[in-house]
C-alpha cells in the first residue's frame, strides 16, 4: 500500500439514553470541539463524509441539514449510509489517491429516544417475505444466533452473563458510555428479564443517543496536526448471506474475510500474538466471543476459559472491549467509529480508567445488518 493515512483526532459524544440535543447541535458540538482541539477550522478539511441512516433520522437524505453544522458549506461532501467504519474506508481511499490531505468522518445515531428503536433492522428484512411473516426481528434473530453459538461448543447460557458483566463493568469506567452499571455481577445480569431466550435485557445493547467525529490525514498533514497520529495499517470489508436459514449463525465468515484482508495489509501473521487489544462492535453479548473468534483473537471453543480466566479483561492478556463495547452504547452508525476512537485512545495512552497496559497494535470492528451480516475490520497502530 502506497502512502499512510492516520487518525489525526476524534471526538466522542457522552452517549445517553435520552440526549437533550438536536442532530445538528450534536454534530456542531462534536465538530467544533475537535477543530478547537486541533487548532484548525473547516478550511483544513478537504472532504466530509457523513454516516447516518435515513430511517433512524426520520428523514429522506439525512445529510441535507447536517452539512452546515459540520462545516461542509460550499465544500466536498458525501454520505455513506452504513456503520461509519465504512465511511472511514472511503475517506482513507480518497486520501490514498493523493488528491485529498484530510477527510472528516462524521456520524451519529439518535436511537435512545426513538419511538421505535428496533425498526432499523425490521426495514432491512426481505419486504416480500420476512417482513410479512413478522417472526424475524433484530432480537429474535440475535437470539437464534446466540442459541446456535452456545450450542456449537456446549457453552452454558451463564457465559452470556459473564461477558455482559465484564463489558458493563468496563463501561462504568468509560466517560462516553451510556449504560454504566458500576460493580454489576454476572448473577445480577442473569436476573434481567428474558427478551428472546437465551438473550436477557442486559445481554443486549441499549438503544442510545450518541455520535462521533474523526479526522483522517495524510502522512505529512498528520504530523502537522498531532504528535500522536494513529496509523491505519489495514482495512478489510466483507458481507455474508442475507438468508438467515442459509447461514451458520455460530460463525462470521465475513468478519474472518475482512480481518484477513486487514491483517495481510498490516503484515500481521499471528493476530492472537501480535494484536494488543480489540474494540469489537458486539451489540449482543454472544457476539463478542463469536466475532473475536472470527477475528482470530480467541481460540475456537475456549470462550468459557477465556472469560473466567480474565484473559480478555482490561488487565488481561488480550483485552477485548476495554471501553465496555456496544453493550454500553449503540448509537447506530457511530458504534464502529466509537470503537475506532476508543482503540485510538488506548494506543495514545489516553484511556485513563480503561487503559490497557500494552497498546501498540489494535483491531477495531464495525457491523451492519441482522446478526452482523456485514463487517468492517481496521488494524490501527501507533
Amino acid at each position: 500500500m502506497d502512502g499512510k493515512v492516520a487518525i489525526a483526532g476524534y471526538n466522542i459524544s457522552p452517549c445517553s439514553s435520552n440526549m437533550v440535543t438536536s442532530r445538528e447541535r450534536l454534530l456542531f458540538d462534536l465538530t467544533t470541539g475537535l477543530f478547537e482541539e486541533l487548532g484548525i477550522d473547516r478550511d483544513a478539511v478537504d472532504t466530509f463524509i457523513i454516516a447516518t441512516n435515513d430511517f433512524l433520522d426520520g428523514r429522506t437524505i439525512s445529510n441535507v441539514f447536517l452539512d452546515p453544522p459540520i462545516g461542509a458549506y460550499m465544500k466536498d461532501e458525501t454520505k455513506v449510509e452504513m456503520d461509519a467504519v465504512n465511511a472511514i474506508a472511503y475517506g482513507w481511499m480518497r486520501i490514498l489517491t493523493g488528491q485529498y490531505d484530510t477527510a472528516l468522518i462524521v456520524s451519529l445515531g439518535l436511537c435512545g429516544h426513538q419511538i421505535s428503536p428496533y425498526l432499523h433492522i425490521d426495514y432491512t428484512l426481505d419486504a416480500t417475505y420476512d417482513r410479512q411473516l413478522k417472526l424475524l426481528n433484530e432480537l429474535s434473530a440475535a437470539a437464534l444466533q446466540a442459541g446456535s453459538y452456545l450450542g456449537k461448543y456446549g457453552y452454558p447460557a451463564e457465559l452470556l452473563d459473564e461477558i455482559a458483566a465484564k463489558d458493563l463493568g468496563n463501561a462504568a469506567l468509560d466517560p462516553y458510555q451510556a449504560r454504566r452499571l458500576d460493580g454489576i455481577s454476572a448473577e445480577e445480569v442473569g436476573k434481567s428479564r428474558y427478551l428472546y431466550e437465551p438473550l436477557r435485557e442486559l445481554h443486549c445493547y441499549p438503544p442510545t443517543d450518541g455520535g462521533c467525529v474523526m479526522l483522517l490525514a495524510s502522512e505529512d498533514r498528520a504530523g502537522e496536526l498531532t504528535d500522536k497520529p494513529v496509523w491505519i495499517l489495514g482495512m478489510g470489508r466483507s458481507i455474508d448471506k442475507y438468508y438467515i436459514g442459509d447461514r451458520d449463525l455460530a460463525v462470521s465468515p465475513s468478519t474472518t474475510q475482512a480481518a484477513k484482508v486487514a491483517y495481510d495489509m498490516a503484515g500481521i501473521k499471528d493476530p492472537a500474538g501480535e494484536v494488543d487489544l480489540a474494540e469489537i462492535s458486539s451489540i449482543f453479548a454472544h457476539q463478542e466471543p463469536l466475532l473475536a473468534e472470527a477475528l482470530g483473537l480467541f481460540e475456537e471453543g475456549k470462550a468459557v476459559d477465556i472469560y473466567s480466566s480474565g484473559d480478555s479483561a482490561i488487565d488481561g492478556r488480550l483485552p477485548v472491549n476495554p471501553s465496555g463495547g456496544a453493550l454500553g452504547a449503540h448509537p447506530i452508525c457511530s458504534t464502529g467509529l466509537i470503537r475506532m476512537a476508543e482503540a485510538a485512545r488506548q494506543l495514545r495512552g489516553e484511556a485513563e480508567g480503561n487503559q490497557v497496559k500494552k497498546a501498540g497494535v489494535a483491531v477495531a470492528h464495525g457491523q451492519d445488518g441482522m446478526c452482523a451480516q456485514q463487517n468492517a475490520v481496521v488494524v490501527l497502530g501507533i
Partner: protein
Amino acid sequence: MMRNVGIIGVGYTPIFVSKRKDVSIPEMISEAVDAGFRNTGLTPEDIDAVIFGNMQTFEGVNLPHLWAVEHIRALGKPVMRIATGGTTGMSAFHAGYYHVASGMADVVMVVTYEKHSEGDAQVGLMGIITPEVMTMLQAGIDVTGGSGMGAIGGGSAGGISFQAMSYLNHSGASIEHIDAMAAMERRNAAKNPYAHLKDPECTAEKIAETAMVSYPIRFGHICPTTDGSTVCILASEEKAAELADKVAWVWSVANCCSDATTGNLVDGMITDPAEQRPCMIAARQAYERAGIEDPKTEFDVIEIYNGFAHQTLMFLEKLGVCEVGEAHKLLEAGELEIEGRLPTNASGGVVSTNSIGTSALNRVTEAALQIMGKAEGGHQVPKDVHKALAHSWGGLMQYVAVTVLGDTPPRK
C-alpha cells in the same frame, strides 16, 4: 498515488417503465447486473468490490444491499452503500472511482436502482422536510408565513418553480423555450431503448398544452417516476486493457454542497435556487482536475440531470458550457440536438426517465456509451466523442456532483 480509471461496461434493466409488476426489488436489480456481465463478458469473480446506491424512502427498504446481496453477486465482497438523494447514482460512481484510483480495487461494479411503483413518490420527497414542518406545526409556528412557506417551498415543485422563474429572469429565456427543451428530450428518449417517456413526434406546442402545475412549471416539464436499475463497471488501466475493447476514461470527479435554505427567506430575502453556486464550484474543480481549459468548446456530449426541463438550459450556463442567456439560443439554433454541435441529453435526460437511484448514474453511463460508440436505438451522436460532461443535482437543490469523461486515459 492516483491511478487512471476507466468505465468498461454498462448494464441496464431491459426496460425503464412506470411499474415492474413481474419482479421483486432484488430480482429487478439482478437484471441490470446480468446486463453488465453480458455486455462486458465479465463474471462475478472478476469484481473486487461493489458500490450500491438508491433513495431508500421510496421503497421503505433500509440498506437494500443486505437483502439483495446474492442477487447482485456480491457475497464475500466489500460492499459500500452510498445514499445522497438525487445525486446518489453519481456519488456512488465517485465512490467506485476512488476504490480503483486509490489502488484498493481493480474492478468495481456500481449498482443503482429505484422501484418507485412500490411506494409513494411524494412521501419520499416530503420526507426531506417532514420533521421540520411537523415540528413547526407542533410548536405553533405559522407555516403559511415566511420561514414556513420557505420550508414547504423547499420540497419539490414549490422551490423548483422559484428556480425556474429566476432562471427565466436572468437568462431572458421564455416558457416556450422550456417547452421546446422538454419536447426535444422526449424526442431523444424515443431513440433510447432504456428511456421511459418517449414521444418521437413531441413538439413545444404539445408540451405547452399540458397542465400548469406552478408557473412556469408545466406537467410536461416534469420527470416521471420510473422502475429501473443501472449498473456501471469501472476498472484500472491494466484491467481495462485486459478486459475491454472500448473504454470511457474518467478524467475527473468533483462535488459540492451548500445548505438547505435555497428558496427560503433569509434576512428578508429569498435565497436564489437558480444561483447554483455549488454547481459552479464543483464544475470549476472538475475542470481543473481534468485539465479542461475551455468548457465552452471542449465537450462533445453533455448529460445534465434535469428533473425539470428548464434545468437543462440553466445548468448548461451554470456549468460554464455557455454564457448566461445563451443556452436557449443554442436550443433555438438546433445546436443541442443529437446531430448538433453540442448534443445535450441525447438520452432524453431525467425528464424522460427517472428511477431516482439511477438517474445520476445514467448521466455518466450515457456519456460513457457515447464515448464508446455504444448508445443504442439511434441516440448515438454522429461524430467522434472525445470529451463528455456528466452533471447531477440533488437534495433541496443544494448538492451538485460532476464527472468529466474522455476517450483516452487522462495521465501518461
